[in-house]
């Protein structure tokens, strides 16, 4: 399989490194976005640990743990998709990308079910939160819960759409060459979104 090299690059090694560096730079800026949310979380939790524990007990730990497992498995399939693409195996790349996207969509579906349960249990500050669920500091924990998980879900939605688009483009002849570094760069983003959830899970669901 011949790899297309864009005209601004000398060879495919330079192209691959430039693409990787671009994605790592973007991910570093994403670390800043989620990092300040984690900083704010830490400050407010240190101010009232009891309220954060009380808030955490409202959440569905089983759904959170299942979703973590789904994302971890999706990282395995995405890694295999990247390597199938590197080996020039078009069919295998496409179905592994589709499996990863389906796992990501399963996460989002389960998250939607969880959100519906949260809303029914009056856990939305500013909308239906009542003193029965806890004091104002419990509400602050829940604000962190909604902001961080919805921002993460937004990232995962983008990941699922890009993964499906990539699968379509690879399947369609000539749109994306199997050995190109585009799948690799997509994989980096996918794993990053997985890592964010790995930190969110204990910080939101396992406050004891």
């Amino acid at each position: 399989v011949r790899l297309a090299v864009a005209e601004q690059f000398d060879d495919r090694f330079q192209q691959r490194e430039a693409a990787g560096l671009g994605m790592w730079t973007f991910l570093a800026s994403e670390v800043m976005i989620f990092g300040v949310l984690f900083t704010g979380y830490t400050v407010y939790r240190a101010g009232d640990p009891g309220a954060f524990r009380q808030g955490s007990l409202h959440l569905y730990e089983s759904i959170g743990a299942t979703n973590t497992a789904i994302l971890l498995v999706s990282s395995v399939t995405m890694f295999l998709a990247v390597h199938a693409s590197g080996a020039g195996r078009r069919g295998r790349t496409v179905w592994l990308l589709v499996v990863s996207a389906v796992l990501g969509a399963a996460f989002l579906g389960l998250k939607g079910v969880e959100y519906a349960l949260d809303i029914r249990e009056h856990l939305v500050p500013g909308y239906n939160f009542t003193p029965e669920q806890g004091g104002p500091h419990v509400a602050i924990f829940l604000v962190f819960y909604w902001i961080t998980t919805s921002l993460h879900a937004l990232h995962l939605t983008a990941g699922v759409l890009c993964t499906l688009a990539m699968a379509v483009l690879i399947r369609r002849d000539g749109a994306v060459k199997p050995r190109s570094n585009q799948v690799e760069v997509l994989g980096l983003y996918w794993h990053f979104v997985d890592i964010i959830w790995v930190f969110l899970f204990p910080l939101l669901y396992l406050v004891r």
Partner: protein
Amino acid sequence: MARHRHQTRSAILVGIGLLALLGLTVLLGHLLTGVAATVTGLLIAVAKAGLVVLFFMELVRETNQIRIFAAASLLWIGIIFTLTLSDYLARRPEARAPYPPKPPAVSSLPPLAQQ
């Protein structure tokens, strides 16, 4: 092809390791409380993230330039955390909370006419 099969097997092994760590974190979350629970939860999260970064994102195989870019994000978030927490955690315990103080009882306010 042999290399390919080898990669598939190690990816599945890393995946099983990650799921085992998830099981461990849930189990310990039920056994431990307080600071111990938080610290172990975060340590396991760091271990999981490390496996993903080094193995799935293949940072070990990348150039030094990319490694520096990846490490820079941790450096900057470290600065944000250190400066912020060196303020809040150094305050007197009663002033430590970022929450607004409780409003005084209405009766303790001076009459409106004197303000």
